[in-house]
């Protein structure tokens, strides 16, 4: 499978103290470990098990995922922005690899 590719939607500008909506999606098959291949052997579990979002290093939102989260995990959540800065998003795979993305926001 291709390397998981994150996609993020964050407004580029916000007013001070505004609560902005953030949408994230990462391409990942989220193999549940419940399925079996053609020979009847279980396909090993391989999911994103943790997602975190920080703003200027401060935790904003995080999520622990179980196999019951759909393929290409999608999250929509909010953040209160008091100053300009950078959102950092991190996804942790079962095999230990991490995928990350950054997004800047300017407070007017």
């Amino acid at each position, binding site marked *: 499978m291709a390397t998981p590719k994150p996609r993020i939607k964050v407004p580029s500008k916000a007013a001070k103290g505004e*609560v902005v909506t953030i949408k994230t999606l990462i391409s990942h098959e989220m193999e549940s470990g419940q399925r079996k291949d053609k020979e009847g052997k279980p396909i090993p579990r391989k999911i994103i098990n943790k997602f975190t979002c920080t703003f200027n290093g401060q*935790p*904003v939102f995080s999520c622990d995922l179980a196999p*019951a989260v*759909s393929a290409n995990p999608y999250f929509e959540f909010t953040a209160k922005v008091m100053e300009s800065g950078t959102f950092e998003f991190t996804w942790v795979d079962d095999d230990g690899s991490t995928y990350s993305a950054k997004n800047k926001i300017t407070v007017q």
Partner: protein
Amino acid sequence: MKLTRRQALALSFGATTLAVLGVPTTRAWANTEATEKAIKEFTGGAAPEAGRITLDAPEIAENGNTVPISVSVESPMSGDDYVQSVTLLADGNPNPAVATFHFTPLSGTATATTRIRLAKTQNVVAVAKMSNGAVFSDTKLVKVTIGGCGG
């Protein structure tokens, strides 16, 4: 007895139907007990109350592979009064755990949307834990047309 082609076909169809119907009973599905246990583990024993938390889920989900679920909790989300975490559980899946969201006062609001897998028609439960230890929950029955656990 010699089987005609027609009889052989009919038999094999019957066998397939039985095998398909047999799946839910032979699998160890999560049940209400496992869900209650998961709720207790999450809350640390406190019994959840109704209110303050709203779980939005479709009444009928055609495809159990991606069921959109939204959860929101009423809270000022200030420094010492905020929603710590919200867990989603599905009592008819092989494992009731779905996802646990962790919020901070920086979240602004305690709302989150994601897409989940549901194996069959079942209850989805959301439990919220506040920073002061109070626990709230909401439950929605979601009817699933095509199950989403790769069975």
